[in-house]
């Protein structure tokens, strides 16, 4: 007879790992499933707003979350979830490439994926100068001219990090006012290698074997294109909610899972946490993801054990 879990957590980033830590302490028999361990957190070079660490890399912080969750005995498996269905016994069947697991409750914590520009040349030149991870790829652009697309914290911190290697960094933003935190914008203004191009979009990336230039929708210094060796895309992310959608979980107009105060969704037994939800005013920080993970585990515990 196959085991029925109390809870399956889908996604092994900050929200999922925090949920697992709480679930273990609530003695919920649970399984943690993730295609990879963490996602976007791994790309953060210096995280400087996690209380208790003045500066820590995303990978190091995540590794501590993993160690903490494992120390409490969780079973973590590297499996991508293909579908979640509710069966006739009111249990959820979580299907992965290899297995079908049964559970009484689910926490969806799959996070978000990079937003792509969806312009000609982007896909073709990915890995050939187009990058979505500045901390990974900065070293390959020593002495080169590059551009960063975006104006939020991720874009601005990427631009700053890239100046350690590149000779010149254009920061291209579609609007006038960059939404990044003022503490970062001050550093950008003080960095002589960064040139900010406002109210401008890239409409095409060109290059034969690798990136050679980008085409702008508005002339900059009288030219409609900019010669660059690399394009770093940092224009935010989108929730990965296909699993939720097919199960009938309510999604808002931007694609985030709608949650109540206890992180429950419209489907009884399904909770959600982290960047994928409408929670925490959509602030989407590690601190809010972990908090939502804790609340979701508490919500699941109350539903399973206290009723």
């Amino acid at each position, binding site marked *: 007879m196959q085991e029925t879990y109390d809870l399956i957590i889908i996604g092994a980033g900050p929200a999922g790992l925090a949920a697992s830590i709480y679930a273990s302490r609530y003695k919920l028999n649970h399984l943690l499933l993730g295609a990879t361990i963490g996602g976007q*957190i*791994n790309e953060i070079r210096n995280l400087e707003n996690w209380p208790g660490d003045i500066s820590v890399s995303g990978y190091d912080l995540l590794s501590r979350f993993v160690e903490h969750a494992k120390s409490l005995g969780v079973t973590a498996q590297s499996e991508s979830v293909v579908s979640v269905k509710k069966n006739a016994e009111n249990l959820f069947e979580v299907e992965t*490439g290899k297995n079908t697991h049964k559970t009484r409750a689910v926490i969806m914590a799959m996070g978000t994926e990079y937003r792509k520009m969806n312009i000609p040349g982007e896909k073709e030149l990915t890995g050939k100068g187009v990058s*979505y991870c500045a901390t990974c790829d900065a070293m390959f652009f020593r002495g080169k001219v590059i551009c960063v697309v975006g104006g939020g914290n991720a874009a601005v911190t990427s631009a700053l990090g890239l100046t350690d290697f590149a000779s010149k960094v254009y920061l291209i933003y579609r609007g006038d006012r960059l939404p990044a935190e003022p503490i970062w914008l001050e550093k950008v203004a003080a960095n002589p290698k960064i040139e900010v191009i406002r109210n401008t979009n890239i409409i095409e990336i060109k290059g034969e074997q690798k990136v050679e230039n980008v085409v702008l929708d508005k002339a900059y210094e009288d030219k409609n294109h900019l010669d660059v060796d690399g394009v770093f895309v940092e224009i935010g992310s989108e929730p990965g909610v296909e699993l939720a959608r097919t199960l009938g979980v309510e999604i808002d107009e931007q694609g985030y899972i709608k949650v109540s105060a206890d992180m429950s969704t419209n489907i009884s037994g399904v909770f959600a946490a982290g960047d994928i939800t409408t929670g925490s005013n959509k602030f989407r920080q590690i601190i809010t993801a972990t908090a939502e993970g804790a609340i979701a585990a508490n919500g699941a515990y109350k539903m399973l054990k206290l009723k």
Partner: protein
Amino acid sequence: MEKVFTDQNFEAEVLKNDGVVLVDFWAPWCGPCLAMGPIIEELAKELDGKTVVGKINVDENSKTAQDFAIMSIPALKIFKGGKVVQEFVGMQAKEVLKDALEKA
């Protein structure tokens, strides 16, 4: 155990291997590469005896990294008969790589 490829052994171990080889181009400064580490280890264990799975540190082996024009990591390339037949950029799920290797 996954193999460790270097500029010195790459030709013998990968380019002159008639079979299928998965090469993970990584570097210690790259968080997503570090996070891929356990997945590569598990793949090497599961495919032991069937497919060669290994890693090459691009920081220490710049010649091979340049030969393959690596500009984004983690870069995962599947070689067959010494030629690249499929490549991935960024973190990948274990099954995605396993399926690709079984089909290669």
